[in-house]
């Protein structure tokens, strides 16, 4: 089975299959049911599985996320949709103090087969309160695993894997990806949940990115190729754990590193990536690693400033051009 499909449809498909197969899977969140989901991910499921398994909730993020935690403790496999990652700030007690810690604090007595899905990122003029990325916050929480699919295929795989896992898993979905198209091949075996993928082979430098900016990085790589700069692009696919081996192997070949992220540069996800890889590949690096990242400012509403506040293709190209490549 090999077909073109939208990102949201891939998520919808994964959920539908999981719900059909396992009656302990249910989804809850604001307007996931009757309304069909803000980004259509739950479309059609309300009529198929009924309101108890596709539950519309009040605006009570901390408690309905916690509801998922409680249900997961006794063997259900809840999927919580937080309408956008920005509202997750209200649910962090449930996510960090409960979901991530209960399995450990109980001495391993409880599993936590919980999935929390959150759209996020800078979309189009949603202003400061609706343009956040919280990956850094979640990364620092031991016990959470974080998937950041950038393609419909990964969205399908990683969502399916997340539902099957007994660990609490956060799925960060970039709002501008829902209506992107890609191939879904259900015949090939899924990559492991947290394995990074080399999206483009190259020999001059390595770009590491994830989610929407993995695609932006690929565009930059194409431009760089035309200038004779052969760029390797790694899509991390997962921010916790991170597949360091794939990154290290690449740096050992290219000796140059750019990390691209939409998140604010200061203490963003890229800080961990650069820091760990520097520690582990210090003598492999010919030049200082570079972070191309969002500005340290709340996202402005104005469209031009908004665009200027996050990395664009040209910013990545310019950073790469700054390297003194061996000729």
């Amino acid at each position, binding site marked *: 089975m090999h077909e073109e499909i939208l990102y949201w449809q891939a998520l919808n498909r994964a959920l539908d299959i999981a719900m059909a197969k396992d009656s302990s899977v249910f989804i809850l969140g*604001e*307007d996931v049911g*009757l*309304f069909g989901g803000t980004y259509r991910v739950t479309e059609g499921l309300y009529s198929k599985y009924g309101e108890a398994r596709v539950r*519309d*909730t*009040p*605006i*009570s993020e*901390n*408690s309905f996320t916690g509801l998922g935690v409680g249900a997961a403790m006794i063997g259900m496999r809840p999927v919580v949709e937080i309408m956008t990652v*920005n*509202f997750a*700030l*209200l649910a962090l007690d449930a996510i960090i103090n409960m979901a991530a810690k209960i399995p450990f604090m109980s001495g391993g007595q409880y599993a936590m087969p919980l999935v929390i899905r959150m759209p996020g990122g800078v979309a*189009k*003029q*949603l*202003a*400061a*309160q*609706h343009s956040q990325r919280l990956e850094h916050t979640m990364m620092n929480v031991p016990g959470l695993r974080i998937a950041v699919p950038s393609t419909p295929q990964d969205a399908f795989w990683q969502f399916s894997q997340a539902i099957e896992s007994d660990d609490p898993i956060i799925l960060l979905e970039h709002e501008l990806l829902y209506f992107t198209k890609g191939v879904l091949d259900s015949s090939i075996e899924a990559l492991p949940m947290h394995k990074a993928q080399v999206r483009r082979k190259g020999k001059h430098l390595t770009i590491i990115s994830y989610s929407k900016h993995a695609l932006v990085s690929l565009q930059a790589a194409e431009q760089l190729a035309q200038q004779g700069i052969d760029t390797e692009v790694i899509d991390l696919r997962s921010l916790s754990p991170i597949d360091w081996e794939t990154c290290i192997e690449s740096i050992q070949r290219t000796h140059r590193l750019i990390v691209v992220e939409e998140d604010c540069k200061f203490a963003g996800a890229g800080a961990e990536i650069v820091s760990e890889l520097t520690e582990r590949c210090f003598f492999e690096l010919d030049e200082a690693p570079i972070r191309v990242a969002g500005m340290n*400012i*709340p996202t*402005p*509403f*104005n*469209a*031009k*400033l908004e665009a*200027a506040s996050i990395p664009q293709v040209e910013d990545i190209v310019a950073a790469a051009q700054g390297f003194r490549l061996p000729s």
Partner: protein
Amino acid sequence: MEREQVHKMLRDMLRARAFEERAAEEYSKGSFAGFLHLYPGEEAVAVGVIHATEPADYIVTTYREHVHALVRGTPSKAIMAELFGRRDGICKGMGGSMHLFDAERRFMGGYAIVGETYPIAIGVGYAILLRNLPEAVICFFGDGAVNQGTFHESLNMAALWRLPVLFVCENNHYQIGTEIHRHSAQTDVYKRASAYNIPSEKINGMDVLSVYSTTERLLKQIRNGGGPYLLELETYRFRGHSMADPGTYRPSVEVHSFTSQDPISIAAHELESSYPTAEEIAKVGPDCITQLTEQAQQTGHLLEQDLELIKKDIENEIDAAVDFAMNSPEPTMDECWLCFQNNQRAETLL
């Protein structure tokens, strides 16, 4: 009620309607993007409540707040320019539709995270308490917002410390696509106030006159140290939740039954002899035409010229606002940083 006051309120409702419909138009044309939550149908709430405030009172509201700002006195051009994200917007293009702030008019902001208005309101109320001033805070929120934990936490504190806050629920029966009986176990919002010993009542939010007079009475009481109060206003939004939402989850008979109560037509009714013609009203928006036309036919309309003038005025005002917005420059990145670091003033950080 003074005829003058009713006149002013009708005018503001018409301005509100015209502003919002024009905003929708500009949005559809692509003049700006983002979330745009419009107010048609609910005008009697903002207009009735805010007309009853004093300049020294404070207003805290949500993402559906253009009309609140407009009625409070923020110039329509400063609001429109903000929707366009321009330098002359009330927030210099940094906030946008969901985040209008106007410090000068004690308009404490539009908040886009549901439930944020409560803590802000009690914070302002607490400051008033410490300063011992005869001022009040109006805290707007929707029926869906009632289920956020901050409602509970903040109302308890407001009551404990007798803060001068009027909590105003704009109950339009929906939290996006979820109807109130599907999001709240207790659908009479005002009854929830008893959990905090806060007095409360529910009135018809489509009737600007009773909204106005009730609010006036309550604010007086609050400014005199009467403590917090919760006022539930039943209303309805004619449009979808935002421009992204066609609102198709609502049965059309329901939508129809409410449009027949259009607050603008109700207010116009009070002005007895000043009914607009069907043609004039057509400009206001399609949803109230039938109703207004019927009423106009039944009661006649004397001050036709007055109303015509008002409508003309409003049309000019909104046209000018859009012109202004369109011609206002985009803010630069330098200006953006200035907004951000505005508070550091002469402080030495390092």
